[in-house]
């Protein structure tokens, strides 16, 4: 319904404006309903401007900046309707260390309402997990799952878990 969509849109939009500034430490972002026609027909445009930079098309943002902008939008939607569980596959691949730290930091807030299953190669992301599963292919082409005993370190700067297969 038009009413419901507009309400949801406005909530996500507010969240996105705040979340972007928090994640980027400044700058500005917005969601804009595209022109023309019925509110139930138009699309949603994304604008984003990292701190200090000028507003340009998001295609000109770097790989890492685009990922963080998308993460901000993702979490803005989760805030409106927290999915009971989320599966994130290698979101952190294009991110440098400080962006991974910011991503992990923001993620913590959602752990109250949602379970997260995160596929990653990154040590810091691994360090914040409560449970760790290793997938192996000892036999070519056949996957097995190994549960990894894990002492979660709460000191994020020293994210080396004790791993015992």
């Amino acid at each position, binding site marked *: 319904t038009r009413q419901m969509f507009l309400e949801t849109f406005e909530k996500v939009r507010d969240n996105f404006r705040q979340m972007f500034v928090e994640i980027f430490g400044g700058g500005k972002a917005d969601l804009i309903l595209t022109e023309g026609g019925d509110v139930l027909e138009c699309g949603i445009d994304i604008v984003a401007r990292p701190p200090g930079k000028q507003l340009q098309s998001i295609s000109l943002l770097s790989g890492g900046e685009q990922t963080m902008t998308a993460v901000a939008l993702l979490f803005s939607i989760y805030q409106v309707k927290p999915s009971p569980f989320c*599966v994130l596959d290698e979101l952190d691949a294009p991110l440098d260390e400080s962006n991974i730290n910011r991503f992990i930091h923001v993620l913590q807030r959602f752990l109250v309402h949602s379970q997260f299953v995160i596929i990653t190669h990154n040590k810091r992301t691994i360090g914040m997990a409560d449970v760790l599963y290793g997938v192996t292919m000892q036999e070519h082409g056949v996957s097995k799952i190994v549960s990894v005993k894990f002492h979660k370190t709460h000191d994020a700067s020293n994210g080396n878990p004790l791993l015992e297969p």
Partner: protein
Amino acid sequence: MYLKNLTVLGFKSFAEKTSLNFQPGVTAIVGPNGCGKSNVSDAIRWVLGEQSAKALRGGEMADIIFNGTDSRKPLSMAEVSLTIGGIDGEHLTAAGVEIAYNEVTLTRRVFRDGSSEYFLNKTPCRLRDIQQLFMGTGVGRSSYSIMAQGNITQILSSKPEDRRVVFEEAA
């Protein structure tokens, strides 16, 4: 609502019955390239009712059945079960599940001819019953709750009209 267990057999590279238990908080899945991590994400997506083989990186649905290796024959069926706890009474009723159960196991099977079977707590059901279970919870075909590898920036490059579907899901 929370995940308790995922069990896969014959799904993609999971030739043998494999079980994953979930805890509250963050479950990290790690391993070398090609070992099957994204296949776990595909399995979850699939048992929740994904109808597009392309979304699972295949050409047709039968592609997700274990295809054999140099030393193993292909299997004729893939089966994935997802056990979920804490579902409220309203959703259980809508899906046709007795409220007595406090956990529900969804099971999906597919055969080489591409036909799927669905079960709720071992009772055959329709895809629609599984969809009813998640109605309005934020878990759904067009939600962003399952983010496939490399797809995060698609949120930014997708057409403005496609994006609104996600907002409608969240409404």
